[in-house]
């Protein structure tokens, strides 16, 4: 069935009407409001509030632990550590807030607490260390741990305290079954470090000096660009920012394009399509639907993007995403969305249900997944040959360009941007044109889904 050429009588008011309906009936649904707006808001709230909730729910660590070691050196070191960790205001600990603060600052000078950063310990610690010999009978002590009367029993094998400590021998830490994980981890950390302190002390070495000697200095990496500017290196952000932008674009484009596929199939299966086509042309219908879902996509992009930029502003890191990158990002998004939307609309018009759509969409989806796999290699080398070549390959080009422009320290050569814009722009126009050819025939077809060859024939039909 070859429909007539429907380019005549093209009216923008109809397109606007269709776009508005498409936008309104996608956005003002419980699913969208819940998924695209409320869910991220809840996530942000949870991320913000959760640490507060966790810190407020800490159970004070109060009680006695038994340390079993050969000469009592580990028990002493642990006792010392717990003394330093006592919170100000705790009855009988004798330490002020300043004392605790000092104790924690001694991380620079080699004290027991300094062997590991304990500043994250936000719980009240008031622990008495009871030392026992390895020859004592521990049966009764273990029963007390089991019943919760004791916080823990820690056994330090003597072979761990020699100048040449044995490998493969572990410290034994027994805690009651209901012991909080954070408390257990704290005991383990202090036991490990106390063992090291005792071991070092036995050799007569100055612990502070030893620690100062083995402490690795930090590095501050900067990249010297062609412009001679030293760009400060932030390895994690170098990967996260491009990935975040690319994912944001991918999710926004695909969510709306997928919605386009679903609504087209619904209109076909509910037979409302013929009513619509009596009032509008297939091209107007397609244009309206793509534009309407495009605005939905932009809304999502704005919601998530604004939250991300607000987060960067909060961290005073806005400088890592310059305005020019944001403008280009918007351009790449438009190209990506129109390409994906054209594919989905064409498929939606050609099939009768979602199951049939899957077989036609699958090859396209595999191609569209490529940017996700290219994230790390392109972020690693945004100006390399892989990044350059894939920038010019539609429909993944826009996604690759986003990875490159937000991840590169060096500016992307303008001719790369120019060619990528030209190639991907032309491909977008071509894909939308092909989609419109398929759409005008597909929307009125029923029965078995077309083969790829039939789709090509539809696209070439007069």
């Amino acid at each position, binding site marked *: 069935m070859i429909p007539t050429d429907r380019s*005549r009588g093209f009216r923008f008011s109809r397109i606007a009407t269709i776009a508005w309906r498409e936008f309104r009936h996608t956005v003002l649904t419980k699913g969208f409001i819940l998924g695209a707006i409320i869910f991220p808001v809840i996530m942000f709230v949870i991320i913000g509030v959760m640490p507060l909730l966790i810190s407020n729910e800490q159970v004070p660590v109060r009680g006695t632990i038994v340390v079993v070691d050969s000469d009592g050196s580990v028990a002493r070191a642990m006792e010392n550590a717990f003394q330093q960790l006592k919170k100000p205001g705790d009855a009988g600990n004798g330490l002020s807030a300043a004392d605790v603060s000092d104790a924690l600052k001694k991380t620079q000078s080699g004290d027991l607490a300094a062997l590991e950063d304990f500043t994250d310990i936000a719980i009240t610690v008031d622990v008495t260390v009871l030392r026992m010999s390895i020859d004592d009978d521990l049966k009764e002590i273990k029963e007390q741990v089991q019943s919760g009367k004791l916080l823990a029993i820690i056994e330090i094998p003597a072979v761990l305290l020699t100048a040449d400590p044995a490998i493969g021998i572990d410290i034994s830490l027994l805690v009651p079954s209901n012991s909080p994980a954070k408390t257990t981890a704290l005991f383990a950390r202090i036991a490990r470090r106390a063992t090291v302190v005792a071991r070092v002390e036995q050799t007569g070495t100055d612990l502070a000096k030893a620690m100062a000697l083995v402490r690795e200095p930090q590095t501050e990496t900067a990249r010297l660009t062609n412009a001679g500017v030293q760009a400060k290196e932030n390895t994690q952000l170098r990967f996260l920012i491009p990935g975040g932008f690319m994912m944001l674009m991918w999710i926004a484009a695909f969510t709306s394009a997928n919605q386009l596929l679903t609504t087209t199939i619904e209109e076909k299966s509910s037979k*409302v399509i013929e009513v619509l086509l009596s009032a*509008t042309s297939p091209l107007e219908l397609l244009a309206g639907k793509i534009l309407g879902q495009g605005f939905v996509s932009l809304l999502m992009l704005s919601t998530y993007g604004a939250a991300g930029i607000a987060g960067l502003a909060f961290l005073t890191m806005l400088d890592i995403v310059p305005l020019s990158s944001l403008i280009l990002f918007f351009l790449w998004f438009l190209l990506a969305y129109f390409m994906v939307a054209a594919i989905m609309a064409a498929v939606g018009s050609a099939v009768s249900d979602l199951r049939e759509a899957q077989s036609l969409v699958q090859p396209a989806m595999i191609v569209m997944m490529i940017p996700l796999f290219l994230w790390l290699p392109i972020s690693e080398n945004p100006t390399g040959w892989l990044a350059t070549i894939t920038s010019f390959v539609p429909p993944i080009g826009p996604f690759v360009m986003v990875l490159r422009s937000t991840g590169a320290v060096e500016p992307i050569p303008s001719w790369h941007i120019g060619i990528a814009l030209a190639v991907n722009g032309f491909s977008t126009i071509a894909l939308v044109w092909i989609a419109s050819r398929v759409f005008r025939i597909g929307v009125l077809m029923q*029965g078995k889904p077309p083969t790829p060859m039939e789709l090509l024939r539809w696209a070439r039909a007069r």
Partner: protein
Amino acid sequence: MNPTITNSKNEPAVILRGVAKRFGAVQAVRHLDLEVERGSLVGLLGPNGAGKSTAIRMIMSLIRQDSGELRVLGGDALDVKDRIGYLPEERGLYRRMRVGEFLFYLGRLKGLPRQGLNSRVESWLERIELPGVFRSRCQELSKGMQQKVQFIGAVLHEPDLIVLDEPFSGLDPVNARVLISVVQDLHREGRTIFLSTHQMAQAEQLCERVVLINRGEKILDSTTQEVTQRFSPRAVEIEPLAGIHAARSALEAIPGIESVQTAEDGRTAVMLVNDQTDLHAVMSLALAAVPCRRIEIARVSLDDVFVRLVTEHGGHARQPVRGAA
């Protein structure tokens, strides 16, 4: 070769000249000539799968004919969409959309201004006896109510040409009567109405002219009156007070009577009259010869014509065409 259609202000609302359409191996419509005069009410009749919907879709420019010429309101349907109202055979609504919103949307697509559109929709809902459904969701309505909503969608913008594909199928008699009445009103307002149906009683009641197609071919194109006359059986029906058995010999003796048959009800005698004898003269003679409860000239129903013509032209149509919506 068909003559080229010339454009004039008074040309028929719909003109088809030698229009044909094939779907694969199936010839859905073959060499169809058809004219629908402006302001007329024409019925397109035919059995299921005869090609009615295909012809209508071509008129609506939803699909293109393989050959032949086609003009709607002086041009192409694509250029005058806002002047055409169309009720497709396949009914469809946005299930979750509210009725008022759906009709507002269709009205806007048809170029109606926002202002006053809602009150126009409400007025139509009242007119078609669907008050109070403006805010209901389409899926909450019964099938018949949904069909009426769709009908409003076809006429809301007061089109010059209204094309209705099987408008009464699936409607109960009460709702069908409401719709028939509205169609008659629209016709009286001067709108051209072209409807397809296979329900002969409704076509007979509504249409000024009927076009009958079978297997994609036109087999009848005539006014309803002409059809009645042309296919009249030349018979007089009489219901004698004393019964057919007692009256038969008297009726057979009337000049010009070829035979006397008993109708299906068992009470009525059907006197078949030869071509040379006046039917009214036969009635006068019969009244004088036999006391009767009722006597009238037998009428042919469109249903009879339909069955007769379709049977003569090779029986019922092929299986419905696959591929086309």
